[in-house]
């Protein structure tokens, strides 16, 4: 039963085309992601792709290890040395500085972040600070937050402030560092990819319920023994399996392609190397898994919405629109009519956990402070679960007029 239900979906002409399109999108996003890693060689030539990644990785991994004060000081001095060697200010020298700095650019970023005003990034910060200041990044991260709270420019409650501070203080330092650009590139494009993926999946499952009516196969379907019970369940099951399988397959291919080309080192490095102010103390791999899981829940929610509309309206076209409304139109509209607090609970946020963990999006329930990504994951898991029996009941009770 389940097998044929799934077969129905993928034998449909328009779904075959959509699958092909998805493959093209997958390829395009993979290429875009891979091209995010660039390397400039000795002669000033720009490179991307496998070769660039290999060179950059080699340069950066010379500095692999814990970023202790000593290492930070070394980086500071290295930067000074590069600056003084190419100090003319000419275009050639600027390029040379860029080229020479590539191996330490991530660590310079870290020092810049720690020494920039709150929520800003000063690209030249490292050039205007002392060696001691450069070595003091971890303390700076915490004191920066404290100063920001003290400035009164934010609206966090005492509990929230304490929560953020304790998260900051709990972060393990010094950071372990190695080349992590593959992961960084992966995470930068993953939200867009997950959104597209969710729309495609919504498309695939949109006909599972309504096509029975559209093809007039409904009369036979609902007059069979299992047509108003198990067969309905197997439709839900087919939707779930298709959604999960397509999601998993697409993300595995995407992730594997990107990391095989760019290199998978850095999985265990703290995400704060890339997202300095992130209060989730997690590694790149953990953050990736959280993003993928959040996206999965968001995608399942959108797919379930499509199936509900499919069962209710008996129109596949209307059902296709449902995920768009849920993931694109609705959040977009709500941003015009600013409802910021409500906004952070829209399902599109699930597909963009990457930005969710970047912001200080917090919520307080009683005395307990929780990050919004965690809350929406829970809420939408619950909503998605609750919707399943509703779809089931709507369909089970259908009358064929």
């Amino acid at each position: 039963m389940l097998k044929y239900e799934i077969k129905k979906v993928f034998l449909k002409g328009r779904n075959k085309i959509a699958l092909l399109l998805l493959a093209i999108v997958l390829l395009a996003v993979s290429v875009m992601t891979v091209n995010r890693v660039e390397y400039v060689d000795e002669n000033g030539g720009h490179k991307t792709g496998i070769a660039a990644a290999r060179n950059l990785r080699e340069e950066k991994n010379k500095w692999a290890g814990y970023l202790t004060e000593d290492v930070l000081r070394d980086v500071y001095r290295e930067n000074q040395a590069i600056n003084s060697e190419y100090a003319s200010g000419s275009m050639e020298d600027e390029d040379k500085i860029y080229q020479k700095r590539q191996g330490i650019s991530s660590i310079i970023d870290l020092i810049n972040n720690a020494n920039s005003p709150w929520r800003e990034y000063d690209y030249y910060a490292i050039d205007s600070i002392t060696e001691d200041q450069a070595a003091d990044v971890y303390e700076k991260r915490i004191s920066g937050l404290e100063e920001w709270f003290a400035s009164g420019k934010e609206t966090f409650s005492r509990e929230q402030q304490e929560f953020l501070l304790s998260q900051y203080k709990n972060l393990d330092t010094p950071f372990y560092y190695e080349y992590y650009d593959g992961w960084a590139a992966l995470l930068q494009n993953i939200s867009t990819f997950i959104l597209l993926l969710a729309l495609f999946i919504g498309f695939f499952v949109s006909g599972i319920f309504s096509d029975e009516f559209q093809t007039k196969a409904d009369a036979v379907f609902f007059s069979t023994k299992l047509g108003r019970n198990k067969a309905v369940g197997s439709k839900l099951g087919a939707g779930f399996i298709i959604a999960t399988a397509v999601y998993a397959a697409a993300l595995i291919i995407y992730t594997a392609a990107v990391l095989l080309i760019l290199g998978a080192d850095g999985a265990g490095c703290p995400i704060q190397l890339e997202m300095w102010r992130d209060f989730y103390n997690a590694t790149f791999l953990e953050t990736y898994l959280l993003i993928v899981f959040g996206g999965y829940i968001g995608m399942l929610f959108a797919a379930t919405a499509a199936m509900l509309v499919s069962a209710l309206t008996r129109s596949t076209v209307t059902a296709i629109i449902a995920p768009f409304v849920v993931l694109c139109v609705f959040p977009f509209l709500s941003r015009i009519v600013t409802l910021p607090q409500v906004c952070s609970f829209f399902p599109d946020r699930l597909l963009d956990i990457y930005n969710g963990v970047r912001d200080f999006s917090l919520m307080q329930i009683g005395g307990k402070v929780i990050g919004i990504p965690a809350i929406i994951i829970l809420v939408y898991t619950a909503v998605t679960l609750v919707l399943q029996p509703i779809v089931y009941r709507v369909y089970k009770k259908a009358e064929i007029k």
Partner: protein
Amino acid sequence: MELQLNDLTKKFGNFTAVDHVSLTMTNGVYGLLGVNGAGKTTLMRMLCTLIKPTSGNITYKGKNILELDGRYRQLLGYLPQEFGFYPEFTVQDYLLYIASIKGLRPAVAKRRTKELIQKVGLSKAAKKKMKTLSGGMKRRAGIAQAMLNDPRILILDEPTAGLDPNERIRFRNLISELSEERLVLLSTHIVSDIEYIANEIWLMKGGKIIRRGALDEIVGNMPETVWICRVEKQKVSFMINKYKVSNMKSEEDRAELRIVSADRPLPDAVQVKPTLEDAFLYYFGEKAGSEDVEI
């Protein structure tokens, strides 16, 4: 086994499609005969639990079929008037899928599918996609799906509509072969479909069953008589307007008319034995030969 319709009524808004029908069915073939819009499909849909009666109910062995739910539908085979299917499925996959939602175990499903494909003469088309079949082949796939679970109750809504005469005869034979030891309800507005295979005929009009009984009873209890007479060609249209004419044969400059009428239409008219077709015309026909009457 007993299927009972108790004061069954279905309204769509103010319109009554099935009007207080009470009937009992046991084994055998029941022919439901009526013109377009008589309410045949609506009645059958209620029998298949596809729509709920506005009032009244249907019971099987004394229990409401809506409460029996799957246990009732398990006994059911249904070929809808507008037979829809999954266009991309092969005949074989289609039947295997329907078998699965009918709750057949996979081994049984395979065996039944194979048997029925052969029985309905689709062996060569088993691997063809449903959408590539001809109208007649689709109908045969339709009857095959209805038979998958060897149903005790077989409901066929105009199974011969749109078939050519050869196919129609083959289909009729197939149905009569399949009708042993079960309850078959077959609707049509084509008299010849059921004339010889139905044990009981129901005439339906305006949502009501206006006459029921065996062929002989229906035909025999007709209050009017059937006549055959010959008239000149130019008088034909006059006769058609005046009388219910169930058949007309052209001869050289004259025509032989078959007329249903209480009185002798012409002095030389000969009284003949009525057929179901004459009865159909009598009960449903307006004057001026209805197209529904199959010649």
